């Protein structure tokens, strides 16, 4: 039996039990009056083997009344089943029972219910039409605990009041028909009144004012638990023509609750609601939820009791405090996403409409929001957003922010018009300032799939200074400008994929990035894969920029299968070669020394070494260098791959007068060591000759 129907049955059952008691009493009086006057000990015993009811089951009930007044009255139940709770050997005994035509009273009695012993007194008066029952736990506790029930009736109408003083909530909870794996009440203290009134077996008034203190509960896993909770409940419900009209107030002033994944502390959170119950439906016509620190939400709802489904809901919340909303709700839900370590400030407003098991509309407004990632991966300042959504129609919204930062790259003030329809969000066009350039987004479309959000766009990148970009990314400085056309950039399953070519002007040449795939951009180990090529790069500009020693000429560079993990290269096939064409080909003495230093055991011939110091510049015909990076090892090659007979490879092939040829012999170089030497050569402006 479901818990909600259990109590309806219980109340009607109680009425039936009272009726049964009256009939039993009349039967007893008949029996007593018919007994011979000389009978020594009046004795009445009534045995029922089985009583079945939808709300309870009784086996082996034995009712005994013995002795002359005051008689002893006893009820023994072999087994009582209420819902899925079962007790064996229940015992109620009234030591002195006064019985006359108008009254049954028990001024001193005892009830044993499971392991619990209770003192019991009751008085059943036909003259006053009233039943009084008082129960106290044994042994008597401090503060004193008392449950006091009064039922009175006039013809068909009745009313009852239960007064609870320091009631043991655990005892009450143990009577409830919980499932085994559900929440278990560990302790609770109850104070208050419950008043009910009705007609025959039906209730028409229910008033309750209950204060709960020291409430602690948990489930087996500990993922749903509360400790030292204080609560106040005020319920007022009246039934007229099969319709219950109710209003309630629920206040949570103290205690803490962990309800996976949320953790809340009682700070005076308050829920007030009113509505009706009719025809197996609960309608909440007006409700207000006030969460301390966070703000207020008004809502209404329609719930089907039988199906336990939400049929309709409307919610409106204005000026919610985003810092508290993030801390209490969003971050716990986003524990495995980039939002897990974010701090937010600002305000949010939300309206939501749900009907017929479908979300009908949702509008989110953000006011002056700032969002900052604790790891510095992204941030946005003064974000204002109006984002309406309707399940059936398209809606127009807007997003604007004063500034932002993504992976160290600054983004300027931006205003974007947004269109939503179904599960898609589209931005026809957006101009986003990036460093000293601009990203022009066209045809942005985002779609929510079961696996998460997917989006794509095309557009253009207007020139961004490579110097500013490399400085922002904190990588080796580069000069020139990055720009290009983006035929298609898409995101799915934490992976950004770029189709087409991203072209940049770099050192008077052209750099092209293709096949760009970035996985887990905001994870701890982002992976980037790409093919990069640079054409006709001016070595004069390049070497001047890095203080490497001057080289004049032009080179083409191809870096295929480039793979960066955590922004550091772990794999690539790189090839640098002199560009075709006629141009000046000179290399300075300092650059030669640096090249030798980089090669470790690279060498020039002894003869060449002898006149290295005699000239400032040398002529060359061709420059070539190759590196296959695998993990930490760079497998080097030169203009031509080294032959088996001769392990050396030519890096610079001399030509003219004075000419110099540099040959490398180290075919395997530790990549971090090579970078260290390069940095040292650039920083010192002077090579270290090994």
């Amino acid at each position, binding site marked *: 039996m479901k818990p909600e129907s259990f109590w309806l049955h219980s109340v009607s059952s109680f009425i039936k039990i009272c009726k049964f008691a009256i009939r039993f009493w009349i039967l007893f009086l008949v029996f007593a009056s018919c007994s011979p006057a000389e009978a020594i000990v009046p004795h009445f015993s009534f045995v029922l083997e089985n009583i079945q009811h939808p709300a309870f089951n009784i086996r082996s009930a034995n009712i005994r009344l013995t002795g002359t007044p005051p008689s002893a009255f006893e009820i023994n139940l072999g087994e009582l089943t209420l819902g899925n709770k079962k007790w064996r050997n229940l015992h109620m005994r009234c030591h002195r029972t006064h019985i006359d035509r108008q009254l049954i009273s028990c001024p001193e009695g005892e009830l044993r219910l499971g392991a619990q012993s209770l003192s019991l007194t009751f008085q059943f008066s036909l003259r006053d039409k009233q039943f009084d029952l008082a129960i106290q736990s044994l042994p008597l506790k401090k503060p004193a605990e008392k449950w006091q029930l009064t039922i009175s009736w006039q013809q068909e109408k009745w009313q009852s009041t239960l007064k609870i003083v320091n009631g043991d909530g655990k005892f009450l909870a143990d009577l409830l028909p919980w499932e085994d794996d559900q929440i278990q009440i560990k302790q609770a203290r109850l104070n208050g009144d419950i008043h009910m009134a009705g007609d025959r077996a039906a209730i028409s008034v229910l008033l309750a004012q209950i204060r709960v203190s020291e409430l602690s509960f*948990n489930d087996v*896993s*500990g*993922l749903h*638990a*509360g*400790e030292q909770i204080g609560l106040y409940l005020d319920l007022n419900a009246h039934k007229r023509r099969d319709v219950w009209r109710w209003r309630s107030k629920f206040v949570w002033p103290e205690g*803490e*609750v*962990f309800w*996976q*994944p*949320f*953790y809340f502390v009682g700070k005076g959170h308050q829920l007030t609601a009113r509505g009706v119950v009719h025809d197996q439906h609960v309608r909440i016509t007006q409700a207000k939820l006030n969460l301390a620190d966070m703000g207020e939400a008004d809502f209404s709802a329609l719930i089907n009791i039988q199906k336990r489904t939400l049929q309709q809901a409307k919610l409106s919340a204005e000026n919610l405090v985003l810092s508290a909303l993030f801390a209490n709700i969003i971050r*716990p839900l986003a*524990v*495995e996403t980039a939002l*897990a370590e974010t701090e937010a400030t600002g305000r949010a407003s939300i309206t939501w409409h749900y009907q017929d098991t479908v979300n009908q509309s949702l509008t989110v407004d953000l006011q002056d929001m700032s969002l900052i990632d604790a790891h510095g991966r992204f941030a946005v300042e003064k974000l204002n957003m109006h984002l309406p959504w309707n399940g059936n129609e398209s809606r127009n919204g807007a997003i604007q922010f004063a500034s932002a930062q993504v992976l160290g790259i600054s983004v300027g003030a931006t205003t974007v018009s947004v269109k939503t329809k179904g599960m898609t969000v589209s931005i026809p066009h957006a101009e986003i300032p990036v460093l000293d350039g601009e990203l022009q987004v066209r045809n942005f479309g985002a779609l929510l799939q079961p696996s998460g959000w997917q989006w794509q766009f095309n557009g253009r990148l207007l020139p961004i200074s490579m110097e500013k970009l490399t400085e922002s990314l904190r990588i080796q400085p580069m000069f020139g400008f990055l720009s290009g056309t983006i035929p298609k950039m898409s995101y799915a399953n934490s992976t950004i994929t770029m189709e087409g070519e991203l072209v940049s002007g770099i050192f008077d040449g052209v750099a092209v990035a293709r096949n760009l795939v970035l996985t887990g951009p905001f*994870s*701890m*180990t982002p992976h980037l894969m790409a093919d990069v090529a640079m054409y006709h790069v001016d070595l004069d500009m390049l070497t001047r920029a890095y203080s490497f020693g001057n080289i004049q000429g032009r080179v083409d560079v191809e870096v295929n299968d480039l793979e960066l*993990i*955590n922004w*550091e290269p*772990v794999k690539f096939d790189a090839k640098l070669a002199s560009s075709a064409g006629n141009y000046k080909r000179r290399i300075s003495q300092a650059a030669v020394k640096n090249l030798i230093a980089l090669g470790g055991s690279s060498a020039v011939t002894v003869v060449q070494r002898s006149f290295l110091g005699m000239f400032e510049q040398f002529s060359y015909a061709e420059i070539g260098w190759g590196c296959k990076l*695998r*993990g*930490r090892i760079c497998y080097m090659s030169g203009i031509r791959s080294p032959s088996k007979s001769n392990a050396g490879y030519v890096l610079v092939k001399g030509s003219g007068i004075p000419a110099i040829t540099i040959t490398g012999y180290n075919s395997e170089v530790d990549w971090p060591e090579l970078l260290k030497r390069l940095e040292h050569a650039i920083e010192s402006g002077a090579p270290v000759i090994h």
Partner: protein
Amino acid sequence: MIWVSLSFFLYTSLANAVDFKASSSAVTRLKQNIKQRHSQLIPFYDSGAVGLTHDGQVVLRDANAVPLSSRQPINKLVAAENQDRNALYREIAIANDHPEWENDIRLTFAQRWIKWARPGWWYQQENGSWQKK
């Protein structure tokens, strides 16, 4: 029986073949993260709140052993630890130039974590049951 022996042979061969010291900046960073987080997890291993699973992860196995106000932080800690552990297995496989070894590396690590666990810590057996070391 032959298949079991063969599987065992292949497994131990793989374990020997994998260079667990193979490193990249990602592996180094992940190891540092795991090392730093370990000291925060120790009290929860000690109390039995957190246990080591047979697939190389950690799990909040008894939230009742954790004060209520700490249950959300420990959830976050466990989620972050598992993210790093999963990434570590993947990155070591990549550093060995064999991404397909990820699952075998995970299982080998799972055995190591359990082997290195202190007495009193809880670990999950192959059949899913929990055992106190």
